[in-house]
Structure formats: C-alpha cells, structure tokens
C-alpha cells in the first residue's frame, strides 16, 4: 500500500502516506499513524524506497519518501503475486458457489 501510494503520488512525507492509505481504504483502514514508520524503515533498508529532508506544507522539516527502481520492481512482483493468489482463491470460491 505504501509503495502504490508513493508510485501514484510521488514523494510524500509520513503524514501524506498515512492519509492516502486511509483515503484509499475508504475508511475501512483505520490505523495508528505511528505504526507506519517501522514499515518505512524496513522498506528503506530493503532499498525499495529512499528518503530525504524537505519542508512540509506547514513549513516544518519533514522527511519525504519516494519509490526507487527496486521498489517499482518489488511492487510489480507483489502485485502479480497478489493477483495470482486472488485468481486462485476466486476459482476455489467459484467452485464452492457452483456446488
């Protein structure tokens, strides 16, 4: 979710990512924003995203995260795997509703 957000919106700070995730989820996702940061740390360590200091809309120092090439590749792979999983699961459910 973080990666798609960054791909679609470009560089974002933590607040922006959290907001976007909540919006996309349409209220179904209601998280503690604090839990976002460990995820960011992990992604950054894996090289999927990078971060740099910038200035936020409220004129404060903020760290802006952006997706890297490796991140895009990972996103694509994740997306395929997810679609594959849902497709297979879909077939199973289809079977069950037929039966």
């Amino acid at each position, binding site marked *: 979710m973080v990666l798609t957000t960054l791909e679609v919106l470009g560089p974002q700070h933590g607040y922006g990512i*959290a907001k976007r995730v909540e919006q996309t989820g349409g209220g179904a996702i209601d998280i*503690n924003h604090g839990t976002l*940061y460990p995820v960011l740390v992990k992604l950054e*360590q894996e090289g999927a995203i990078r971060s740099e200091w910038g200035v936020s809309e*409220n004129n404060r120092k903020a760290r802006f995260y952006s997706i890297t090439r490796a991140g895009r590749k990972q996103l694509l792979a994740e997306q395929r795997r997810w679609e594959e999983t849902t497709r297979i699961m879909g077939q199973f459910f289809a079977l069950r509703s037929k039966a």
Partner: protein
Amino acid sequence: MKFLRRLVSRIAAAFSIHREDRRFSSEFDTHIDLLTQENIRAGMEPAEAHRQAALKFGTPSLALETCREQRGLPRLEAFTRDLRHAFRALRKAPGFSLSVVLTLAIALGANTAIFSLVNQALLHPNGIDHPERIISIREHYGKLLNLTDLGATSGPVFAAIRAERSLFEHTAALSGLYLTYTGGSRPEHLQAAQVSSEWFDVLGAKPLLGRTFTPEEDQPNVGRVAVLSYSTWTKRFGADPSVLGRTIELDLQPWTIIGVMKPGIEWLGEADLWLPLALSSADIGPQENFHQHLFVLARLRPGLLQAQANAWLRLFSSRVLTSGVPGAKDTASLDWYIFPKSFVNAAIGDTRTPTLLLLAAVGIVLLIASANIAGLMLARNAMRSNELALQAALGASRGRLLGRVAAESLLLAGFGTAAGLGLAWIGMRTLLLWVPKTELPRGLNAQLDIYTLAFTAAAVAITGVLFGILPAWQSSAVSFAASANAGSRIVSARQKTRSTLVVLEAALALVLMVGAGALLRSFIQLEQVHPGFDARRVMTASISFPASRYNNPQTQSAFYQAMLDRLPADSAIASDVPFSGGINSGGFEIRGRTSSNGPPTHADVRYVSPAFFDALHIPLKRGRAFSAVDRIGTECAVIIDANMAGQFWPGEDPIGKQLRPIGLSRWCTIVGVAGHILQSDLALDSGRGTLYYALYQIPRIFPVASIVTHGSTDAIRAAVASADPSEAIFDTKSLADRVAGSLGSRRFLLQMMASFAIVALFLSALGLYGVISYAVGQRRREIGVRMALGAQRVAVSRMIVAEGLRLALIGVALGLAIAAGLAHTIESQLYEARVFDMRTVSIAVTILVAVAVAASFFPARRAASVDPMSALRCE
C-alpha cells in the same frame, strides 16, 4: 540479498542510534502537527485537536522503540547495554570481581602454560612440519641383552630406505661429531650434526639465510660446507648476514658456511652446526649391516600409515637376514628386525605419562577453580536475588535477566582469560629459565601458539559452562513472589549446592596432595640411593680429539699424561664418566668356555687411567687397581665389577681368570674386582656388569674422552692448554650435578605437582571460607536466638567450625576414593613408594583438615561476636 542489505544497514544504524532517534522524533512531531492542523480545519478546538491527533498517531515512544528494533541490532544493543551494566556492577564489587578474575587467571595460566609445554613436547614439536608423518628407524634384538629398541641403524639399511621412494618421501641420517672451532679468541668446542642431504626436507625446516646441502655436496671429499644453527650464528658470529661464503676453521680444517637455519630443529643431535654426512659407497656396503651408528628419520608420503612402513620394514628385515650379508647368519637367531617408531616417541623419549599426569593435575586445579567461582557467583546472585526479582516483577523477561547474569560471567571470563594468558606467558618463561635445560624435554620455548590458544579457549568454555550456567540457571528461576515469601528456602537450596562444590574441591585438593606426597617420598628415597661412587667435589669435563691430529694412540696417550701431570694426583681420564649419557658396551669370550652355554658374554665397557677408582672412591673388593705398569707392551690387565664377577664367576675367585674382548687378539687377565656403580639413573640399575680396560694399554683412538678430578674447572682448562693449546674442554659439570641432573625430570614433576597441590589447597580453602562465612551471615538471626537463649560463644564457634570440618571430612572420604582410582597411574612414576603410604596420606589429610578448620575459624569468630539484640532487631 534483501536480507543482506537489511543486515548491512542495521549494522550501520547500530552505530548511529542517537542521530536516527532524533530524526524519527522530528518526523513524528511534524506528523502530529499536520494531524492537529487537519483537525483544526475540521472545526476542533486546538487543545482537543492536538489530543485527537495524538490518539490517532499512537504512542510516539512505542513507535520509536519499534523503529529502533526494526532498524539496528536490538540484541546487540541490549547486549552491549548489559555489558556496560555488568562492568559497572563488577566495579562496585571489587572484592568479588578480583577474586573471580584472580582464581580464573591462576587456573587458566597454569593450564595454558602446561598445555603449551605438553603440546610442544608431545603433539607439535617445535619447528617440525607434520611430525606425525615422520618416523624414526629402529632396530630390535629380541635375544641380545635388552636391545629391544636400538635407536640407530646401519648405512645399508639407511640407503635401502632412502631408495624406497614410493613409501618414504624423504629419508635422512644423522651422526654426531665433536669439533674444535679455532676462529675465536680461544679454542671452542662445537657439536656438529653430520646429516645427509635430505635431513632438512624430512623435518620440513627451511634456512633463514642461504641454503642447505645439495646431494652432490653430500659425497665424500667433495664439499667442505657447513650450515650454522641460529644460536651459533647469533652467539659466535654476531648474527652477521655476511657469514655466508665465509670460511671457518674447524679442527684446523677450512669449511665454508653456506646457510643459517631458523631456530627450532637444532635440538635434534644438539647441533651447533650441520655438516654433510657424506657416506661413502663402503659406508653403505653389505659389510656395514648390523653396524648401527646412524640416527635415521623418514617422512612418510601423505596418507600412508606407520603400519604400512612397519610392514615394509619387516619384509625388508627378513630379506636382509636371508641375503647372506656378513653377520646375517649369526643375527638370524637373535630375533632381529627393523621397525619404525613415531618421531615424538623417538626424539622426546617416554615423557608421556609424566606430562599427562601434569595435565591431569592442572585440570584438577581448573575444576577446583571453576567450583570456586561457581560458589562465588551463587553467593553473589543470592545477595542480588531481591534485585533480580524486582526487575522480573517490573516486566524484565527471563531472557533479559539471564542475559544480565551471562554478561557478567562473560566479562569476568574475559578479564580472567586475559590475565591467565599473561600469567601463562610469564610462567612459561620463568619455568624455562628456572628449570635447567637438561631436566625438560628438549626444544621447548615459551610461546602461545595457535594450538595453545585453542586449548585455552576450550578451557575457558568449559569453565564458563561450569561456573556460569549453574548460577545463571539457579538465579533465573527467581520470581518476585518466591523471593519475597520463601527467600530463606531458596537460600538454603543454594547453600546446599555451594557445600557440594566445596566438598568436591576438598576432595580434588586431597587427590593432588596425596599424589604430590607420594612423589615427594619417592624422590627422597631416590636421593638416598647410593650410586656406588662418591661424587662429592668431583669435577668432570669432556674433550674431543680431531682425527686429523690425533691419529694414533701414542699421541693421545702423550696428551693424557702431559695433562694429568698438571692436575692433582687422583685425577683420571676415562672414555666416559657415569651419569653423562650412554656407556659403551661390548662382547668378550672367556678362556676355557664356549659361548653357547651360560649368559651372553656382554658387558658395559669403560677405558680408564689408573687413578679412576681413587678419583671416584670406587672400592676395590679384590685384587689391585691399574697402575703405571699397565701400558702398551705389558700383559693385558682388566678389572671387572662385582656384578660381572657374580654373573660369570659365581662362587669363584675371578682374579687371574682370562677373557678376550671381541676385536682384540690378546687374552686379558682379570687383576681386580671393583664395586658396582650405577651408570645413568638412580632409579634404574641395569644390573649389567662393567668391564674396565687400562686406557694406556689398549691401542685405541678415542674421539672424545672425559676428565675426572678433584681440581677446579680452571685447573682443568690450564692443564689442557699446556698439553695442547688448540684443544678446548666442554660439558664441564660437577659429578654431583650430573647425578642430581638424572633426577631432573622427576624433580620437575614433583615441583609442579607440589605447586599445583598448594594452589588447589589454597583455592579450596578460599571456597570453604566463602561458604562458611556466607552461612554465618545467613544464620545471624538463628545464632542471635541461640545466644539469647544462653548459648556460649565458644559453643557457637564450635558449631560453625564443626560445619566446616564436616564438609572437609566428606571431601577427604571422596578424595581418598578418587586417589585410589588413580593410584595405578601415579605409581608408575614412583620409585619404591606407594600412593597409599600411611604417613603420606595422614599428613595430607591433616593438612587439609587443618586448613579447613582455619578457613572456618574466622567466620566462626565473627559468629561468636554476634550481638543477639542487634541480630534479632535487624530482621
């Protein structure tokens, strides 16, 4: 890949914890600020907006902690924190820390030092590459005297083995040679090892400078080339690298130096320098079979076993016997064969049992030390059990608590190991300086090599398990409730563990004391053995005669007489003196007897000048000593010793009987019977007879002779210089020192065992003291109650001492049982002494009990001085 990347950044992050923390706090602040503004836009009051924002974000410190765990190496960080904490805690308890570190250092130091020596002597001899692949070629006579392991072999055998390349990668022979070096300010004796060209390849030794011998130089009359040992190079040539190519004069002949060896292999043959052996074709010809004069080493090809070499050598032996070479027919009936012996056994000799005994002794010291430290740790953790329980109650996980205790053990082990290695190094250096060279296996150095360090690491690991795990296991089982409610019960369980440890320590200390005591008794008995001669105030020296100048017996006799004229009247020359190494032996026939019946006519042989028996105060039982009459041209006279008289002429008077030495054409008449003397070992009398020849009567040239005199070393030197200014004496030593030196390895073993016994006693006393004084501390209240109820102070002290005594006595019983199990091994090292000698054992037990009483006495006195009122009040 992903994992690696994360690991790298984690490690990087571990070094910048604080900076990263600041980064995240500032990010969090911005985030919450943005949330607050959003809430304000939605119409909230600023305060409420901030509250909602904070709720939405969650606990920043929790997020920070999760990020930190995600980011760095949390375990490592926790661990370094534990270490820092442990370091501070240990500094706050200097008494405890110091005793643990010291105990560990002493035990590890002793173990490391001894292991290093054992390793060098038995496992990895210095300077030698893969010693397990090197074998020494020996010869065996099953039916000739006790020559079951002849350390030498003959020229033709050497040549045959050298030719067998499929089995032996390299084969080389060594033969000793005494030389006089005349290049310095005064003539000096040098010992040369004449070696065949592959000698250095067999050992896998490389030169420091220059090169070693080529096969071409290893030919008779070709190369007068020499390779210097490292110590000769440094001592006599000032470590001058330009010695290569220089010509030096040895025995008045020129030799060219072509190389200098690295230190390490010169102890084989005690070489000051190496010269080519240069065997001629006659030296390896068939007539040379059974003339065993070469020390031969062979390096097996990789992967071959000693057993394969053995099989080949046995086959070869039977081929020699059936080949019809001179002597083969006679030898065939003597159960003769050639066999291999592992290099370590051959070169170092049978030091296995004593060294392993030493290793066992230091191992025991290590065990005692571990038990002691475990006891100290238990006591310390007991004192901290409340603190630990509190931490557990506040939510510290059991793992964290264990980590805390483990960090402390690790720190102590680290300091102890460092100090132990230092001690080991110092110990080895002093040991090697303090113990005369002759008393130790040769070629030992103070060094901490990779094997020794590995051993120390293993010892630390074992010790760590023993002293670290037990206390940690006990203390991690605490729970706050248990500690708060039933603390005294846990304490008593702990006390039981500690008491068991102390009993073990006492038992092991007793084992060491009994062992050392038995060795001491055996040693005292040996020192009282009378060698058959009087060594007091007798000085001995050796002298070598270069064949180039002393090429006939007359010249040599003239030298002897010129020299003896300048020494006191009871000075003598002999082919060798007792306790100076091997003695020659030889066969003879007895007039009127055939050799087929009776014992083999063979005896130790010594050539002596007339005053020899006077010089050593060897009693003449019958007949006369040699005199000036016994010279070339008069009737051959011999003197035999009492053993020989008993063996060949039992119940007869041997005076006037005649015998003929093998190789001599004349019959000799026995003119006297001298007392039997020991030749090389106070503990071991070969029982063989000795045959004395008159030195001036037998036309023989001796390459080396010995001087015995009641005069001084300077007198000997002056007498030699006046007789021949180009001669040098060597190996000057009083006869008493030689005799004492023969007990060297036993004395060394005794001293080491005694020191270990003392250390063990000291450590177990410390352990006992710790346990008793801790028990007194725990029982303050009980003691207070007793005293309040009217118990006398004396009775209280007695009760405490009795507790210590009880532990010591259980230890004694256990120790005696262990000693009984080991008795057999220890007794193999004893001379007419038993392990369970009543006196030794009772002395050892008395010492242990006395030390136990003393160790409990101080805590007992403290117990007796408990003030009942304050003891009761403090609870």
